């Protein structure tokens, strides 16, 4: 198993919704060939050390993933074609990258919350039903 890190730069003026769209698009393309996506997050908006396409700021996005068959050349050529991506780079990692806790936590929490809400609802409904039954009896 090999672990890779891909970093790419997009236009700084993109809103969150458009950023998510690009991110999901790239993730989808990586997912086709990779084994598992470990991390995918926006690193931040930074000043570029040199202008790319006359743009001096950029939003950096990082993706960590594991791969069985190498497909980096194909990924690079695909990324070059994308209009929204200003620059990209893929490197091989020596060790397995740590999953970002923030992302996981937020996802897990939201799932937990949803489950809890559902459980509570169902509990309340059950209690209501039972009460109704008792009243009827």
């Amino acid at each position, binding site marked *: 198993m090999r672990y890779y890190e891909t*970093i790419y*730069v997009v236009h700084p003026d993109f809103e969150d919704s458009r950023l998510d769209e690009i991110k999901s698009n790239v993730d989808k393309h990586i997912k086709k060939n990779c084994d598992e996506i470990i991390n995918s997050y926006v*690193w931040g908006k*930074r*000043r*570029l*050390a*040199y202008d*790319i396409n006359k743009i001096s700021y*950029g939003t*950096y996005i990082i993706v960590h993933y594991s791969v069985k068959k190498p497909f980096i050349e194909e990924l690079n050529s695909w990324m070059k074609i994308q209009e929204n991506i200003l*620059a*990209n*780079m893929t*490197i091989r990692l020596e060790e397995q990258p740590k999953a970002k806790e923030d992302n996981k936590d937020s996802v897990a929490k939201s799932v937990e919350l949803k489950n809890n809400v559902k459980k509570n609802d169902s509990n309340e409904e059950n209690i209501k039903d039972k009460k109704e039954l008792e009243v009827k009896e």
Partner: protein
Amino acid sequence: MSVIGRGNVCKFCEDKSISIDYKNVKIIKKFVNEQGKIIPGRVTGVCAKCQRQLTKAIKRARNIALMSYTGDSFSA
């Protein structure tokens, strides 16, 4: 953290918590001169192993526009 003139102690071997990573621009830009050239290990005191990693990190940072090739911007 001044880089030059600190004897023969490798900074990265001394403090293992510092990771030599291309994203860690604050650290690696100190090992580049005003022209953006990589300062040799014999000047900075960085050991050969760490110098190899450092060189790689600097070149990666240049590639993705985190550091300048020429040192004319804020990187120097």
